[in-house]
């Protein structure tokens, strides 16, 4: 076990300005019903909305001399809007473009300053979410999907929006770099990893292109994984996983770091409850923004044949994290530097190393946003953990797109 510093009596709290517990239930209900009404008025046939709010109060004491009191807050507004064409026997669903956040109820303020203009006229959200506005655009987009063009399968340059790319980062970077998976402790459930120790030891394993810098961070403000101390009493921190495309580190805790010749835990040990065993869990893993000034508009302009994908969709990856297939929430065709219309039936398939090595451009910090999940599952008995993944809109060249349309 790597030694851990004694912290004495300390506390940590999610930075917030509005505790969800101070907001009346009626106000929350009214907001959700307003979102539902807005969707229905704009063409939705069905809508349901929900607000998940968590306050985790955790006390840790150890014989090492740490007495740690933590007050962790998380929030997730979400909805599902469905448009139906009874004549054609078709239906399409558009999920919310919100992200679960490590924030207070202030996330629901819908501040104009936190809105980001996506491509194809979509409004996207950073650290403040406007659920009513998003419900309106969701209803319009769900209707538009009913008659959108079915994609021609083939190779495309993909322009991936952060609330979509976050899940791809989660599955193809976050999980394979968990050291317990690499060692075989998760072989019977989540699986093992292609990112074996010999690849890391070589010092030149090319995980991605030179542009790709992936960082683990348990301190990032607003993220789901942010805490002051982990569940072994280790102060949290930020560290590199992939730097300039090269695999440089894993995610490891006190009883693992000696295996990778390090003497300090990364501070990413977590148990979902007092009655679960704490073990290594994924910290926030994020793709650093591009260093040169480059906007989403610039990116679209530079693509000849591509697809812009926003929001999360269907996702599946093998047990060693080589082969994956991802869908999305909305898809737009890009031709000769312009968005030309919405697409249906899109999914892309790739191999983790090929995919990240095809990364050719990353938008700048101005486009950076977080994706999140409340329900990252791992372990037997299974435990869930909440985690965020930040990025700016990113381009990947020449990716295989399949058509998922079928007739039954």
């Amino acid at each position, binding site marked *: 076990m790597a030694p851990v510093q004694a912290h004495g009596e300390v506390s940590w709290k999610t930075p917030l300005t509005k505790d969800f517990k101070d907001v009346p*239930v*009626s106000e929350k*209900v009214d907001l959700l*019903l307003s979102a539902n009404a807005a969707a229905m008025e704009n063409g939705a*046939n*069905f809508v349901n909305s929900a607000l998940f709010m968590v306050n985790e109060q955790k006390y840790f004491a150890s014989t090492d001399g740490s007495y740690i009191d933590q007050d962790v807050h998380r929030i997730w507004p979400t909805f599902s809007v*469905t448009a*139906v*064409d*009874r*004549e*054609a*026997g*078709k*239906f399409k*669903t558009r999920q919310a473009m919100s992200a679960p956040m490590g924030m207070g109820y202030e996330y629901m303020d819908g501040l104009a300053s936190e809105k980001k203009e996506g491509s194809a006229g979509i409004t996207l959200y950073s650290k403040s979410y406007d659920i009513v506005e998003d419900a309106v655009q969701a209803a319009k987009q769900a209707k538009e999907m009913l008659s959108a063009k079915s994609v021609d399968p083939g190779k495309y340059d993909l322009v991936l929006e952060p609330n979509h790319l976050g899940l791809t980062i989660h599955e193809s970077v976050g999980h394979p770099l968990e050291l317990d998976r690499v*060692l*075989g*402790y*998760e*072989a*019977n*459930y989540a*699986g*093992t990893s*292609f990112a074996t120790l010999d690849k890391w030891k070589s010092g030149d394993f090319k995980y991605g292109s030179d542009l790709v810098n992936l960082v683990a961070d348990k301190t990032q403000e607003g993220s789901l994984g942010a805490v002051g101390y982990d569940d072994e009493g280790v102060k949290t921190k930020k560290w590199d996983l992939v730097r300039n495309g090269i695999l440089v580190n894993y995610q490891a805790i006190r009883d693992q770091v000696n295996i990778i010749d390090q003497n300090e835990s990364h501070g990413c040990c977590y148990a979902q409850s007092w*009655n679960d*065993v704490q073990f290594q869990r994924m910290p926030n893993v994020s793709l650093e923004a591009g260093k040169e000034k480059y906007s989403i508009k610039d990116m679209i302009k530079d693509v000849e044949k591509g697809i812009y994908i926003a929001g999360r969709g*269907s*996702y*599946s*990856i*093998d*047990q*060693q*994290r*080589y*082969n994956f*297939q991802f*869908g999305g929430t909305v898809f737009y065709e890009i031709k000769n530097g312009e968005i030309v219309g919405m697409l249906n*039936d899109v*999914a892309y*398939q790739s*191999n983790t190393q090929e995919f990240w090595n095809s990364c050719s451009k990353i938008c700048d910090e101005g486009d950076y946003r977080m994706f999140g999940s409340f329900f990252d599952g791992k372990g*037997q*008995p299974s435990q869930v953990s909440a985690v965020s993944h930040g990025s700016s809109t990113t381009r990947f060249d020449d990716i*295989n797109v*399949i058509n*998922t*349309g*079928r*007739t*039954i």
Partner: protein
Amino acid sequence: MAIYTEEEAKKIMEKALSFSTADTCEINLSGEESGNIRYARNTVSTAGHRSNQSLVVQSSFGKQSGTATIDEFDDASLEKVVKRAEELAKLSPENPEFMEPLEQQTYDKAINFVEATANITPEYRASVANDSIEPAAAKDVTAAGFLDDSYGFNAMLNSKGLFAYNKSSNVDFTVTMRTNDGTGSGWVSRDYNDIGKFDASEASKVAIDKAVLSREAKAIEPGKYTVILEPAAAEDLISNMARSLNARTADEGRSFMSKEGGGTKLGEKIVDERVSLWSDPLHPEVPTSTWSGDGQALRKTVWIENGVVKNLAYDRFWAKEQGVEPVPFPNNIIMGGGDASLEDLIKSTKKGILVTRLWYIRTVDPQTLLYTGLTRDGTFYIENGQIKYPVKNFRFNESPIIMLNNLETLGEQVRINGNLIPYMKIRDFTFTSLSDAV
């Protein structure tokens, strides 16, 4: 101990109900004792025992409802949780789909509790791990497995006089065996209500043999293949389809069961005529509780017969709206099989793929029930009635509706995840890419 007898449970719930001032009140009480052992890298990593109990109160004033939960059952705690549920009910908007609690129902006597499963000890769990690890190590294979056993009860009481009680037991076992050179992997799953049916050595041997047989798999081109799906491979797709047999979403046009121009496919043939699907809480191989979460009696229900959809699930509100009787969602799925063994299915296959299991299955398109996922832990090429060699894993994109229209042969049934599913041979199963994962 978190396990209460029928009389003890009723007494606790009656006490809670005595504090109710709501128009209607429904109380659910449950308790569970569970134990587990986990191993990996041929050694035990964790073991544990849990004891949980929970009482849930739903109070309603008119169509306003609130729910509160507690795990302490002294009088003061019971009064507190009822008051909390009532406070929340008064804050809630009216639910236009509110249904009054049911009056007393008649239930069949359940058969899903076996005392022997409740008597499993930590020493027994350790012996299961040993029965996996020792034979694995002897074959240059590494075992990673998990045994999880539990027993418990669920009880329900409401202000209309309904009382229901069920005691259950369950054991789940999975083990992944990987050859030490990293080129082969095998897996097995077993689940029972009765631990007496479980043989850890037999199950572990199946996974070890698959691991050794699957070493150094060859890559073959993805495409459409005849496949033999072991029950563990077919079960996820079949149970996903069964869970989608929902009347309301079909009536509302947002289901694979909705028809062009309106209406549903209820009464229509949607899959091969040899396919029949039903649920039965009293089936001796896959018994379940005989009542549903909202207190409705569960009995044998036919969902698909000779390829024709015979029933869709109706919740109580939707049944009332449509003027039909409710059809509760089932707790198990049974698919009719045939006499063919796995060996028979292989012998009758000229060219095909044997699939041990499917992994990371996700919906791609709910309109067509299209799913994606990958083969894992033992995928083999069959030629002229024999397994020729292991092949690399594939990603599939397939709908169970299309798959069950491409049915070649049904084989023997096997219990998997509480359901009873046959081996099945399917033609033109769609593999869309290759995976290097072992």
